[in-house]
């Protein structure tokens, strides 16, 4: 449970004592009933909106939480809790780009609020705003080395930008504080692999594949498949990518990787079908088109290959980045 959801002791115009007690006891549904009743009497009370928004967030009803926080923000533009609530709800809805301005404002309004900073760092990480994210998250872990969540986001940020050594250090710091984080371990296995620590990566990947909570994650199997493929173990790689596909059936990325693996196994027909499916699912991504173009060429389907090449020629496939 994120720290900020433990509740704000802010005064509301109505008597929220009973609902607050229920909330504090983790009885969110009951608390929500009372907050709703109170809101009917005072529909523009921002503190009530925040309370109900927070409760809905706890219940995982993020869309309603967003709407409630948004109302609170419109009524009282400079209320930090409303900004944080809205930003965090948007983050939960996987709309991190939209979350960033609200979280930036929250941090501006309350610079000491670590929860707001962490949420902002998380949003930057998800949007790969590298330098901003690095600044916020480094500051958080520098001021509190036991902030496992910030270490994790920092590790993920480094990982996503291919800085595997600092990623590994941050992930290790996070895992030492909070071992039960499958995604952190998956990142760690990937970082070990990229750093050429093949044995360590193999050991960790294997351990994760037999851990039920991790094995339920398609990203584990995708990472494992990539690791095996890059170490020229194509058949086990195919098995791993099939496990991923079983968990996430309509992923362009998985089809792309399976096409690569099949191509390396000389199953050109299978590779073509998967690459075509990947292009169909995500026509805007160049990677699958490049692979499909090569497959068509191998199969002598020159017209189709030329079509893909023409698309790629018009697409800027360059790497993005600010500095290096």
């Amino acid at each position, binding site marked *: 449970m994120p720290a900020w959801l433990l509740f704000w002791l802010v005064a509301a115009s109505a008597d929220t004592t009973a609902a607050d007690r229920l909330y504090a006891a983790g009885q969110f549904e009951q608390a929500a009933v009372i907050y709703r009743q109170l809101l009917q009497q005072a529909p523009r009370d921002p503190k009530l909106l925040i309370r109900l928004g927070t409760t809905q967030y706890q219940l995982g009803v993020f869309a309603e939480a967003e709407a409630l926080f948004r109302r609170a923000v419109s009524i009282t533009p400079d209320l930090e809790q409303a900004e944080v609530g809205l930003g965090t709800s948007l983050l939960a809805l996987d709309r991190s780009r939209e979350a960033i301005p609200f979280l930036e404002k929250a941090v501006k309004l309350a610079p000491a609020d670590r929860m707001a900073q962490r949420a902002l760092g998380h949003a930057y990480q998800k949007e790969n705003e590298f*330098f901003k994210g*690095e*600044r916020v998250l480094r500051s958080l872990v520098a001021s509190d080395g036991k902030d496992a969540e910030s270490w994790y986001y920092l590790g993920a940020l*480094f990982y996503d*930008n*291919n*800085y*595997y*050594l*600092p990623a590994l*250090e941050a992930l290790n710091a996070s895992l030492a504080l909070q071992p039960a984080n499958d995604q952190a371990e998956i990142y760690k296995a990937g970082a070990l692999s*990229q*750093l*050429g620590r093949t044995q360590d990566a193999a050991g960790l990947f294997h351990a994760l594949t037999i851990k039920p909570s991790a094995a339920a994650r398609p990203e584990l199997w995708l990472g494992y498949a990539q690791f095996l*493929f*890059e*170490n*020229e173990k194509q058949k086990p790689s195919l098995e791993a990518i099939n496990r991923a596909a079983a968990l996430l059936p309509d992923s362009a990325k998985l089809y*792309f990787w399976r096409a*690569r693996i099949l*191509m*390396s196994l000389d199953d050109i027909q299978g590779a073509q079908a998967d690459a075509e499916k990947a292009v169909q699912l995500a026509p805007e*991504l*160049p*990677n*699958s*088109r*490049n*692979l499909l*173009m*090569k497959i068509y*060429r*191998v199969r*002598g389907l*020159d017209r189709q*290959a*030329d079509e893909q*090449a023409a698309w*790629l*020629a018009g697409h*800027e*496939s*360059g*790497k*993005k*980045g*600010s*500095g*290096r």
Partner: protein
Amino acid sequence: MRLLIWLVLWQWVALSAADTQIRFEEIAKKAGLNFTLKNAASGHYRQIELMPGGVAALDYNNDGCTDIFFTNGAAVPSLRKTAPEFSNRLFRNNCDSTFTDVTAKAGVAGEGYSMAAAVADFDNDGFADLFIAGVNRNILYRNRGDGTFEDITNKAGIGGVDPKYGKMWSVSAGWFDYDNDGRLDLFVSNYVRWDPLKEKECGPPDHRLYCHPGNYAGTPNQLFHNNGDGTFTDVSRSSGIAEHIGKGMGLSFADFDGDGFIDVFVANDSIRNFLFRNKGNGTFEEVGLQAGVALADHGNAIAGMGTDFRDYNNDGLPDLVVTGMVNDTYLLFRNRGGKHLFEDNTISSGLARLTNQITGWGMGMFDFDNDGWKDLFFANSHFPQLNRYLGTQSELANSVLRNLGNGRFEDASKTAGPDFLAKALYRGAAFADFDNDGRVDVVVTALNAPAKLFRNTTPGTGHWLAVKLIGGKSNRDGLGAKICLTLADGRKLYNHAATSVGYASSSEKLVRFGLAAQDRATAIEVQWPGGRTQIMQNVAVDHVLEIREGP
């Protein structure tokens, strides 16, 4: 018969696979090769600081000993060589493992912020001429044949000022005869549009970084046709080359499709690479994507830097290797022949694993242990400011990867001798047998550090043969000529004459072959540019063989 075949095969495999340990000894200081590459870095993180400097291996005085030319930076932002420390330098090989600085006498100190050197006898007079590519100034030096050079840039019309773009920032250049008229033409790769007074700021405020090339607009490459009278015509547009806007770095030449016309590969920085297929009518089509060399199989462009275009697996088809940045992996594209398609063999060759955590600039595909298989040399270093994120220092050791003859390479760097482990910000590399002992040596530049001369001291190397081509109808250097060498066991080795190797650099023009235990070549077939073929039978080895183009 079966027994004979078995014995021959056994002999070849046994000798090829023998543990010939590639070794180098660094001898620059001892040899008097005293050069430090200056990039004029001053804490402003200007893009050009990253990019120097090319180096060339040439025999400018035809004494049979290969000399060395270094390009150098200049003051910034003036981009002028305001002090002797910025001078380009020519070192004469004294043929006794020492060198003498002859820059002043030769008159090649240069102007502007230089990047690359390209060597060839463009006027077919028997003396190696020198083209310097740079940020603000390109120079063509004609070799007078008396130990001095003449700057004929303006007279030749080869300064590179484009009517639309002005003087572009040139990073590499190379000579080839694209129309097989017997005169060498010049290809110049250009990087990005850049102004020393308008450098952007990149990276976090507390740790400035060099800007990613995505922050700059690209530029087209240039092609200059040699008119045969000491002048050149800019045919960049009419040839189709200028249609393609890139961020050009290293370039390499080969006739990849076997049609008798030399094609051009340009490694681009962080956008897709270009492969210009020579159509044989004075025009080129860019086929990098269709041929499968524009992008790696993973579909991402890499920060392409150095490149070489040679046959690593002795199947008669030139293959491509490209260096890149950390996490890119260097790329190896195997030429499958047929319909112009290359296969990305980066993983299956072992390159992915061996190069994923390094950043490479200069490179070359040469047979360092003379076992019949071309090995790989890489001049490495990370971008200087990335140490904070990579968690490692930017200076790296160079790499030498031994070709195992089965499509795979192994890292032979750690056992290549203590000198080889020295770390620096390495850049350009040029390859030649500087001491004429039959083993290919390497000269490497390093940013703000002394250049290194790695003398090949590999023990127990095999026999060798170096072919010196002298063109008649073809260009005098024979650049573009393809050579097939047949051994007693029937095996064939392939190479072609090309001096544009690696990054911004130029290597010796001799065409080399490592022969393992084979002490004779049954036949040597030279296919000169334009298709004329010449065959020599029963050739002795372990020497430089001069082949003059027949009538």
